């Protein structure tokens, strides 16, 4: 985040934040976005490409980029990195087998320089499913403690199905971004 960007954002009347949602396929990214926006979540096809949602959240405007997680299109994630204020990494807590894949993709993502200033919210989704790993177990598997000290991060258990935990996670994310970007406010 360069100084110019900060100044531009301060001057902007509408306080916009750009949020990037990523994670493996089947983790529930689209469902989370629609749930937060209060939309119907009963018919959601796997995302081919991406969706953008603009949501008024508290006194901020969130531009949420929800990018498909299928393996074929993961290589396109990088096209969305530019100017990302907040990164949301969604984990399917019930998919134990692919936690290794999940860790590998997250590690790759965090090496990305363009995302180095972004606040990171990890949503341990599908907590409503019996057998899902708890957020602290997910944190252990993903080895979050060893993350770069400069990174602002937080892990929250949630369920896009019931909506539980979503607001807690996004509250933290928005506050954290605001404290960085709109610090002069």
């Amino acid at each position, binding site marked *: 985040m360069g100084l110019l960007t900060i100044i531009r954002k301060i001057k902007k009347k509408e306080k916009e934040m750009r949020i990037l949602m990523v994670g493996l396929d*089947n983790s529930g990214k689209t469902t989370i976005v629609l749930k937060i926006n209060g939309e119907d979540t*009963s018919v959601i096809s796997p995302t081919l490409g991406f969706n953008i949602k603009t949501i008024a959240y508290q006194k901020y405007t969130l531009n949420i980029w929800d990018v498909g997680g299928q*393996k074929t299109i993961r290589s396109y994630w990088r096209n969305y990195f530019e100017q990302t204020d907040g990164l949301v990494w969604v984990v399917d807590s019930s998919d134990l087998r692919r936690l*290794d*894949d999940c860790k590998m993709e997250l590690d790759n993502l965090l090496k*990305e*320089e363009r995302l180095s200033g972004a606040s990171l919210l990890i949503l341990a989704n599908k907590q409503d*499913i*019996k057998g899902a*790993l708890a957020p602290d177990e997910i944190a252990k598997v993903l080895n979050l403690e060893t993350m770069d000290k400069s990174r602002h991060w937080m892990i929250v258990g949630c369920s896009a199905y019931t909506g539980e935990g979503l607001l807690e996670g996004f509250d933290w994310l928005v506050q954290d971004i605001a404290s960085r970007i709109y610090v002069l406010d």
Partner: protein
Amino acid sequence: MDDEMEKEIISDNKEAEALQKKHLSMLDRLSKRQQSRSTSSTEPSTESTSSFLSRFSELKSSIESHLSDSQSVASDPSQLKPHLDKISESISDLEKLVAQSSYFLPSYDVRSSLKTVSDLKRSLENLSSELIPKKKFSFKNKASKKERDSVVPESKQSIAPVYNSVQPSYVARDSPGFRNKTGEVLVGEFKESEIGEFTISDLDSCEVRIIGCIRALFIHRLKDCRVYVGPVTGSILIEEAEGCVFAIASHQIRIHGARRSDFYLRVRSRPIVEDCNGVRFAPYCLSYGGIEEDLRGADLDAETGNWANVDDFRWLRAVQSPNWSILPENERVGILDISNSGTERCVFIIASHQIRIHGARRSDFYLRVRSRPKVEDCNGVRFTPYCLSYRGIEEDLRLADLDAETGNWANVDDFRWLHAVQSPNWSILPENERDGSVDISNSENMNEEV
């Protein structure tokens, strides 16, 4: 005449003489001029344009060859820096040469050589920024650039290997599932108990039946299996399946790396395939006692038609993907009934006027029947003539009007297979597998009339 001739000759001679003189003197002058020119040019040799130009081009080509060497030197980072420094030094030497010679050079040559110098400088800059990233970004850009370069091919390569990753390094607990089985029938019934996620993995030639609702289903590495599953309220993820038949219903279905497999689907959203080949789709056709209620509870009671709206992530074009197709109607199975109340692996020896058989699987029927027997929702049932005996059976049969063999035991009507060709659900029991006469003189069992 002679005189005249002589005169002429003399005059000729005179003329020739004069001419020769003239010529000689001219040659002399010429040679003198040449001499003077050459002596004048030998003296300030360093100040000649031509010698400058030859020296300049010599240095220039040496710098250029060093520049082109840099790519190969780049493999050794410790040598790269001194190498580039050396080139930079020779370029500034060249620049100095131009400056020193500029007072006698024609202005065109000065301009063109200065331009050459600046071109060389620029190509050195480009080269060093390419080989050695600029200082400004060096600590992060260097790492991330290499990382990114290596990540891209890796993620592309990893498509196949990742599916093959043997065991996750982290297994927190034994989650419910069927794993590592060959040639078995695996039945799960989750009618009362609430089940969360369920895993079906590493099966070969198995039949899986799951009755009741589950929240999430993971299917991984199946070969030649049949998987019949009640409604899944969350999503289904299938990775690696070959030669399988699936009857599944869910809100979301993702199929990765499946080959030669048929899918009978009901799905609320568009199912997707990725890295699949030879997969075919048909509507859901599962049945068991209470499935309607389960489907309704899972919001899957309505047929959305989405079983045919398959998105192939490996085929993002307007034309139909070659990787999947609609299963032709005449190749679809009828209703797949997996009710546990249904009959399975039984032997029936029965005689009656009418026989109806519903939901039987892998069972043999020894029949005598006056009318055509009927099967519905059956699978793997085989038929053969009646063979029961006990004392007085002939009389009983006669009284029941069943003493004559009608041959109807083989005239089975399958109400789930209304095609001209033989139903795949039933067959004639081969003679060498038939029991001989079964004598039950002392007890009466295995006798059932439906």
